[in-house]
């Protein structure tokens, strides 16, 4: 009861001119810092949080929401235009988005990402406002065995990102899984593949790997191609805006991405990266333009970007209703909330409704500001591509290393950045896809730990893995994901697929 009034009241406060200005400043700062390659949303929020402390609670909450959304969105801009994702959730965006940008369709790619983020953010924030308690119940019913089943599903569908060769896709995935083994084993505390080097005990940082493989690998590859790649890319072919066909192909992925992203973001062990992987493979399944995947399919940008943003709102469900920070960004947000006198926990909605609804209203306003700011800027962003290569790539490397140095100023970390950059370069030369390496590093440890936890709780009884209804459904989905394409192929519909496999980029 009163939910709607509370929200209305919150929106009224947030929509005051002064607060709108704070939202605009927040979104601008968040986008400006988040857009730098190598600096993901977690670092952006951590860096800019102190800026908000000087304002009154309402103003600082609104500016904070703006920074959060701005940082989330900023990362996808450079992923699309420069193929340099700064964090795991934009890795998939880069797959199709960068191909579009290279074909002069960077404008529509950025637009579908911005509008998709807005639509997803809007729906997910409303879901957060109205159905958070139910979502929390569902999310808590996920134990280790359900998560393990979800990981199996993610592994099965990840082949959508394999590109044109199963061998090279699988090899890339297994290299990622091998890197994932490095570090202290959480269940037994033993060091694996660390060779007595203390810096390796915490494992390979996903951000370091993603930045190295994409930003540095890409730079080295472009440099090695000499004059074959023109000094400047033709930034815009056709329109900067989305055509009617782009709209027709985008709206369903936006909605699907939202409904994949929100619940997965709400799960304590979910996260935006898994949501974006699942959305990408879903879009590949549903698309009527399967042949375009890997070459710049707009669905492959629209879906994951929506899923990414929806899961960011989903993360707030356990954070606000349980006080559970489930991602690095959420952990930093928790620290921020405490500054505003907000103590997230099960009683928050009851004891502090003004602040909670104020925050939700701020998110809505910030989401809207993001669109207002970014749509007109798209024309400017695509101009990034017209910066001469020497300066553009020098700048990319500057910021890529800045992100790594800022998170961990150690020579060893920079050494890893260089080593993985060379690996990414070598893999590009031989036509290996890059994304599966990052996917393996993210999913590998999750799948392993959840399986071992599930079996520890059941005391080694394997059958218990399948006895939960949710886990069973997820396993069935995983089996279907393998079997259905096989049946389709047998019925002759696989021609497109095999033809696609034979082609090269």
């Amino acid at each position, binding site marked *: 009861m009163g939910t709607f009034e509370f929200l209305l009241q919150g929106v009224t406060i947030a929509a005051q001119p002064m607060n709108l200005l704070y939202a605009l400043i927040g979104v601008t700062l968040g986008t400006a810092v988040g857009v730098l390659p190598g600096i993901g949303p977690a670092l952006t929020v951590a860096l800019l949080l102190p800026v908000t402390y000087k304002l009154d609670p309402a103003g600082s909450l609104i500016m904070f929401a703006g920074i959060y959304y701005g940082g989330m969105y900023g990362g996808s801009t450079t992923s699309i235009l420069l193929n340099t994702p700064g964090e795991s959730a934009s890795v998939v965006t880069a797959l199709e988005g960068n191909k579009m940008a290279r074909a002069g369709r960077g404008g529509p790619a950025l637009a579908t990402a911005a509008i998709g983020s807005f639509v997803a953010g809007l729906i997910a924030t409303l879901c957060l406002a109205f159905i958070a308690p139910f979502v929390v119940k569902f999310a808590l019913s996920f134990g280790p065995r359900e998560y393990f089943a979800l990981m199996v599903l993610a592994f099965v569908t990840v082949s959508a990102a394999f590109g044109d060769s199963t061998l090279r896709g699988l090899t890339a995935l*297994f290299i990622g899984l091998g890197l994932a083994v490095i570090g202290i084993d959480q269940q037994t505390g033993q060091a694996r593949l660390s060779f007595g080097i203390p810096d390796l005990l915490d494992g390979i940082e996903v951000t370091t790997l993603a930045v190295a493989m994409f930003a540095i690998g890409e730079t080295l590859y472009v440099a090695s*191609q000499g004059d074959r790649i023109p000094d400047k890319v033709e930034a815009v072919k056709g329109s900067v805006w989305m055509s009617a066909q782009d709209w027709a192909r985008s709206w369903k992925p936006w909605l699907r991405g939202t409904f994949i992203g929100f619940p997965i973001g709400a799960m304590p062990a979910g996260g935006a990266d898994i949501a974006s992987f699942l959305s990408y493979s879903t879009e590949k399944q549903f698309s009527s333009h399967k042949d375009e995947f890997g070459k710049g399919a707009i669905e492959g940008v629209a879906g994951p970007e929506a899923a990414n943003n929806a899961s960011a709102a989903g993360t707030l469900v356990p954070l606000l209703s349980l006080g559970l920070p489930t991602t690095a960004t959420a952990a930093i947000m928790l620290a921020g909330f405490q500054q505003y006198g907000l103590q997230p926990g099960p009683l928050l909605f009851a004891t502090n409704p003004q602040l909670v609804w104020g925050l939700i209203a701020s998110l809505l306003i910030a989401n809207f500001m993001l669109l207002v700011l970014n749509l007109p800027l798209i024309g400017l962003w695509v101009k990034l591509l017209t910066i001469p290569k020497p300066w553009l790539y020098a700048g990319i490397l500057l910021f890529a*290393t800045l992100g790594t140095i800022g998170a961990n100023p150690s020579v060893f970390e920079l050494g890893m950045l260089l080593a993985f950059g060379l690996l990414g370069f070598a893999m590009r030369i031989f036509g290996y896809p890059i994304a599966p390496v990052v996917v393996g590093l993210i999913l590998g440890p999750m799948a392993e730990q959840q399986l071992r936890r599930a079996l520890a709780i059941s005391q080694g009884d394997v059958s218990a893995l399948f006895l939960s209804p949710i886990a069973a459904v997820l396993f069935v989905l995983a089996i279907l994901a393998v079997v259905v394409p096989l049946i389709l192929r047998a019925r002759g519909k696989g021609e497109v697929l095999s033809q696609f496999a034979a082609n090269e980029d």
Partner: protein
Amino acid sequence: MSGIPSNERRRPDRAALVIAPVLFAIAALIWWDAGRLAEMSNYSRIGPATVPHVVAIGLALLAVWTGFEAWRGDFPEREPIEVKPVVFIVAGLAGQMLLLKTAGFSIATGALFALTAFGFGRRKLWISLPIGIAFSFVVYIIFGRFLQLSLPAGPLEHLFF
């Protein structure tokens, strides 16, 4: 030395053939490392070595498959690559890494900036190096000073702060 007789166009891809033993070596390394882990009593029956063993087996199988495909010449054709620009950029990254603690963020990153531009054909170091250092210094002021990121300071930074 011709490849599969039935397909005269395809020959063994020697560079790609090197990948197979590399993958196999990684698999062997993972297998060996997993072998020295203590299997502690636990209830899950899956110990710390189980997953590394699975990954090692997978990589070994992929090594065989890679060798087979490389022999048949099934890897995509590669464009010839230019090594020189890559060497300059790698030198820039290595230089930044080694200079960072002594010379500080701005000078080390400025060197990276200039060497990258050099790799891409901007040979005028007396222009690009000052630009790189100045640009890095601005970045240092924004991120190191105002946003409190711990970026290593060197002589240039100490001159001002």
